[in-house]
């Protein structure tokens, strides 16, 4: 109950931020929204009406929220097109990349963490842990630049930018290239080559975005496992004669699931969004992060408003889903005493 209230307050807060964006920025909000077209008095009046600047603040807020729910997001100053049309394919591009990074980092990170926990204090573990400390400090944008320059430009192993090779003309079924390249006419025309081109384009961005999360998740997993291994019930299981692997699957795994999942997934969401903004810029990945950066640089206020709203609401929804998932998984919360 408390959680839902928090959720709605936060969503409202995001709406507020994007609402106040143009009203707080220095300058005339109408001109900010219109850009060059603001010189035309007719356009000026239309925008002023739609912003409702004559009305009191709460009326404006109501109009703004109603507009959003009607699906009217406005047009970009830079391209003139409807924002929602520009946004959707970019969001799908980011989501495709982000989802893979999320799953990849979690998977590799937790396996690494398990390995480190069971080999704790051995030479391998100590070397790995120290190098992980160093890797954690590598700035993600530097890593991306280095990867591009070494593997794309120098060795020509991977492409420099984009989601898929120029030679492919993909028909968009879902908007997710990995799926689209395998269905319908796309598959007929290109067979698996489009799919592999797509994967090829993803390799470097995925590595750039996952390295730091992998290290963090490995550390969280390792620490949780070590803590559980010190508990009495592990001793109980051992004195029953259970093998180490049985103990791991039947006792350790269930007890680290909750803390590791909560901490990692909430962490991953934040890191993925932040990382996406930087990585998409470096690799020219046509995603929502790069969209945000370019629109801030070009003062495209209508777009900035919508993108912030979108990303903010997305993060809140994901956080909520994750918290609810945790509640279901945690046995202590499931059964009332």
């Amino acid at each position, binding site marked *: 109950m408390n959680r839902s209230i928090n959720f709605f307050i936060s969503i409202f807060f995001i709406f507020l931020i994007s609402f106040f964006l143009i009203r707080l920025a220095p300058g005339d909000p109408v001109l900010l929204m219109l850009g060059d077209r603001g010189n035309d008095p007719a356009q000026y009046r239309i925008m002023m009406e739609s912003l409702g600047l004559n009305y009191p603040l709460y009326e404006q807020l109501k109009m703004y929220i109603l507009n959003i729910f009607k699906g009217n997001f406005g047009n970009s100053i830079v391209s003139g097109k409807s924002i929602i049309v520009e946004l959707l394919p970019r969001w799908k591009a980011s989501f495709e990349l982000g989802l893979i990074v999320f799953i990849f980092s979690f998977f590799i990170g937790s396996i690494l963490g398990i390995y480190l926990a069971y080999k704790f204090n051995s030479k391998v573990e100590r070397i790995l842990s120290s190098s992980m400390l160093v890797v954690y400090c590598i700035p993600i944008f530097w890593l991306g630049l280095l990867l591009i320059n070494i593997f794309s430009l120098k060795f020509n192993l991977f492409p420099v930018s984009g989601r898929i090779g120029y030679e492919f003309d993909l028909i968009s079924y879902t908007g997710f290239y990995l799926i689209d390249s395998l269905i319908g006419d796309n598959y007929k025309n290109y067979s698996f080559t489009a799919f592999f081109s797509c994967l090829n384009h993803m390799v470097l961005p995925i590595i750039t975005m996952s390295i730091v999360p992998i290290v963090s998740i490995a550390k969280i997993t390792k620490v949780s496992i070590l803590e559980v291994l010190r508990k009495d019930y592990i001793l109980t299981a051992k004195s029953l004669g*259970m093998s180490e692997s049985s103990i791991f699957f039947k006792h350790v795994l269930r007890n680290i699931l909750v803390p590791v999942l909560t901490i990692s997934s909430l962490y991953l969401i934040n890191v993925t969004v932040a990382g996406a903004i930087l990585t998409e810029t470096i690799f020219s990945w046509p995603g929502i992060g790069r969209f945000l950066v370019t629109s801030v640089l070009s003062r495209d206020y209508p777009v900035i408003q919508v993108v912030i709203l979108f990303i903010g609401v997305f993060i809140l929804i994901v956080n909520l889903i994750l918290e609810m998932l945790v509640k279901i998984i945690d046995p202590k919360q499931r059964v009332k*005493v």
Partner: protein
Amino acid sequence: MLLKIEELKVKTEDIILLDNIDLEVNHGEIIGIIGESGSGKSLLAKTLLALNSKNLVTSFRSYNYEDKSYSYDEIKLLRGKHIAMIFQNPHTALDPSANVKSQLKNAMLLNNKSENIEHKSIELLNEMGIKDAERCLQLYPHQLSGGMAQRILIALMLAREPSLLIADEPTTALDPLVQEQILNLLKAIVKKRKMGLILISHDLRVIKKYADKTIVMYSSQIVEKIETQKILDHAKHPYTRELISIIPSENIKYKENLKTIKGRILAANEYVMGCRFSNRCLLVEEKCNTKVPELKDSTYRCHF
């Protein structure tokens, strides 16, 4: 003969934690081990099942279970199926994320018998004196009372039908009424199944009431071995005699001070030449500080 150990020693790099322990348990017998914190009794329990952490070095002259000799690495084959152990705090000893049913099931599956697990679990719980066994199976450890949890821990340990049970302070964390119930239960089970029980406690009253034979430990050594019946009148070691004398009588008077043994037990890194009880012993003399007393007639370790 169920278990016989000769000259068991445990040490870290330079500190001796268990010094020349000899132990013997027979079927249907309850051996009580009494000692205060720091005497090494819990370590002994863990060592018997080779559950020590990796930095401790264990050595012995012989470790014989049911007339078969085992090396240190082979001891782990005995765990659960032949020798089981229950601990002091039942709540932490049970996996908080699994209910009773699945924990019992995991234990029984180790015996490679997968039929009738639920039926056998209920039978086992009934034997523990748990009346509402069916409902109990669904519960999680945090929903159990102390006594219930300890019964379930015992049930868990008996699931593989071992012949020897080691109970390390099984009732210290429980309130007195439940303590007696659990101890009576343990005694009944052990006698019925002709198992051996090593009962470890710091409370002499418990040992006196339930154990057939008593072993007194102090500063990682055995200082006395005696049949429990004879302990009140025939105890020879000064420490044992002090322990007996400090038991508050049931007719203790109002405002009468409880007796204690003066001084404190030596920590493992403080062991001196000579008898380790010498700093607290009332009979102390010159020779106590120079020579470590040997175990006389395998019954007590004192110069007198």
